[in-house]
């Protein structure tokens, strides 16, 4: 890991990024014939490779949607698995075009990293996973506990804030990767594993007996997760931003992977604008008129992607909650596609 960040740093220092940093990401991607997408090293539901090496997950679907919008082919992607601490350097150096790796949107990350968040793909919060045998019912009973955490995350700082704020003592053991962290938790080195709640559900699946572990009710932070792109290329920023809105917008319009061709024939003005039979919204983005149809055909609408990867259609079984559409009690909302 150290070596990766070192190489990336040197690449950054040597100015290999000069080309990538300029406002030509779309052209670079087209010339390369492939989108380079930074994902996690394996987080079920968000980005994880199956036994054949196919990546799936909510974060992966964002990459696939972008590739579909550009190439009309959701497989033209090179996935770059990154640890939490290497992810920003990989984006800065131009090694990846977009970072879609359950990354929390914070002010300092938005301003000091030379990169921008394009939206929120998943509204998350930090929680605690403990063994049922400890008979703990609340995070406030965790005084003096040992806590395992993955290094290089907002989690580490939230943890410090929470225990300090509640006058509780704790011991933190920080590991480089999620797998090492979970292994240490499972071996009994820690009483508690803390991370974003979605990740707790995902990692719990990897444990020997998931039913012996429970996620505590407290959610101690806001963790809006979203994709990031480099500063300095507003067109690319727009493309990534509107790819997510296209998925949310498609759900609002009732378009699904199955019925997209049917719905596209509709006479409704907002549908005609979205699918490109009226106007040239896609071209304004630098894409094609049928960009939204391409996206929905490839990965479905936001709701479909959610249910398939982390919701009822997956092993994680997470409820939509905040990630429900605004019109159904959640806060997922797409600006008008017009």
């Amino acid at each position: 890991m150290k070596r990766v960040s070192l190489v990336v740093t040197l690449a950054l220092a040597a100015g290999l990024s000069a080309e990538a940093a300029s406002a030509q990401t779309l052209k670079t991607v087209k010339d390369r014939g492939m989108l380079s997408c930074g994902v996690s090293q394996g987080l079920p539901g968000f980005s994880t490779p199956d036994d054949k090496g196919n990546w799936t997950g909510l974060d992966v679907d964002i990459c696939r949607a972008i590739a579909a919008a550009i190439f009309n082919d959701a497989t033209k992607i090179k996935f770059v698995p990154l640890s939490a601490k290497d992810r920003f350097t990989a984006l800065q150096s131009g090694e990846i075009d977009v970072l879609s790796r359950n990354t929390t949107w914070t002010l300092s990350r938005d301003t000091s990293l030379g990169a921008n968040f394009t939206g929120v793909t998943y509204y998350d919060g930090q929680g605690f996973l403990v063994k049922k045998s400890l008979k703990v019912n609340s995070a406030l009973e965790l005084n003096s506990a040992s806590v395992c955490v993955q290094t290089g995350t907002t989690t580490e700082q939230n943890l410090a804030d929470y225990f300090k704020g509640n006058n509780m003592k704790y011991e933190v053991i920080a590991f480089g990767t999620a797998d090492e962290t979970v292994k240490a938790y499972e071996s009994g080195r820690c009483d508690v594993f803390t991370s974003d709640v979605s990740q707790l559900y995902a990692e719990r699946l990897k444990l020997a007996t998931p039913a012996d572990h429970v996620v505590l009710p407290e959610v101690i932070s806001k963790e809006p997760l979203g994709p990031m792109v480099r500063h300095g290329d507003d067109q690319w920023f727009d493309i990534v931003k509107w790819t997510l809105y296209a998925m949310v917008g498609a759900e609002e319009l009732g378009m699904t992977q199955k019925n997209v061709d049917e719905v596209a024939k509709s006479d409704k003005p907002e549908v005609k604008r979205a699918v490109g039979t009226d106007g040239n919204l896609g071209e304004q983005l630098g894409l094609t008129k049928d960009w939204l149809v391409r996206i929905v055909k490839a990965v479905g609408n936001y709701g479909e992607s959610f249910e398939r990867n982390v919701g009822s259609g997956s092993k994680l079984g997470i409820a939509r909650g905040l990630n429900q559409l605004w019109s159904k009690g959640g806060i997922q909302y797409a600006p008008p596609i017009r």
Partner: protein
Amino acid sequence: MAIEPRKPPSQLLPKLQRALGGRAGWSGFVLQLLFVAALAWISYEIVANARANLQAQRITAGFGFLANNAGFDVSQSLIPYSGSDPYTRVFFVGLLNTLLVSAIGIFFATLIGFLVALGRLSPNWLLSRISGGYVELIRNLPLLFQILFWYLAVLAALPNPRQSISIFDSFFLSNRGLVIPKPIGQPGFEPFVFALLIAIVATIALWRYARRQLFQSGKFIKVWPYALGLLIGLPLLSALIFGAPVSFEIPALKGFNFAGGSRVIPEFVALTLALSTYTAAFIAEIVRAGILSVHKGQMEAGSSLGLQRGSVLRLIVIPQAMRVILPPLTNQYLNLTKNSSLAVAIGYPDLVSVFAGTTLSQTGQAIEIIGITMGVYLLISLVTSAIMSFYGWRISRSMGG
């Protein structure tokens, strides 16, 4: 007629030529100059280019972040540290943890290495085979694998704190580490330390005096009874007069973990064990080679003087072998220090983990942080080399060449 001593020819020019690569004439000099100029230009370009790119992408640069609050905690710190301290403090916490694990690792690696080497050369068949087996097994397995083995297979198998193995109800061993009573300084502490220091100085002086007597007049003085008397007697006397130097805070199980006492965390133990056993395998081979490089006539000469095997080794063979051993031994020390950065795999808070890891990803200032970290490792290595060179210089001086 006096013969004028001929002036030696000026050594300056040939020396300069040799220093510049040994090519005769000015062509060599010009080539070297060009090379240096090109190197300087490339480094300048790299720095200027990086600066321009960082600015263009509006990535924060500079070292201002060091004064910001870290906002995260660390499991082991030799200096007082809390999350509200700045990143500079985190840097020193990490650095001290790296130095601690390196120093203790080097000590045990050297000890085990020498013992295994002597074992391998021993006439005892079983001992030499066991030592040989140790070397072959340990040095041929990847270090990261060994660290994970100690951490996840050995130490993690210890019971949890509630079922910890306890000794006298004051020492507790569990998968959270070893908890021991913590000494707390009392008013009698300072006189106690003072008495101990006096005892140590007096013992050293006594030992040197006895040695001189032995070499000059052949008179043998038994030092150890006096030394023992001094080292135990003086501090004891101080404790009797000024009261006990320390009291002990006995750890007790409270909630999830032990409260009170001092704790050695399992990450530290696993890392130290893995680093010292791994490096010891290499040191053993180096020491063995060094001892074998001493002519066996020396051994025979020692034996014919009536010295025992141990004394021959200690007094005759090893001092000569040290000259061969020292340079590769220094390499091993440097390797151990650098290998300690594998700590991140088991969550030991060393420099790479807390500074080049957590701090880097929280501030995103990769160039500055990786630069500082590389500089620090370079510095540690150079200091280690310098100490070892000094030691080597002393050995060769004491042996008259």
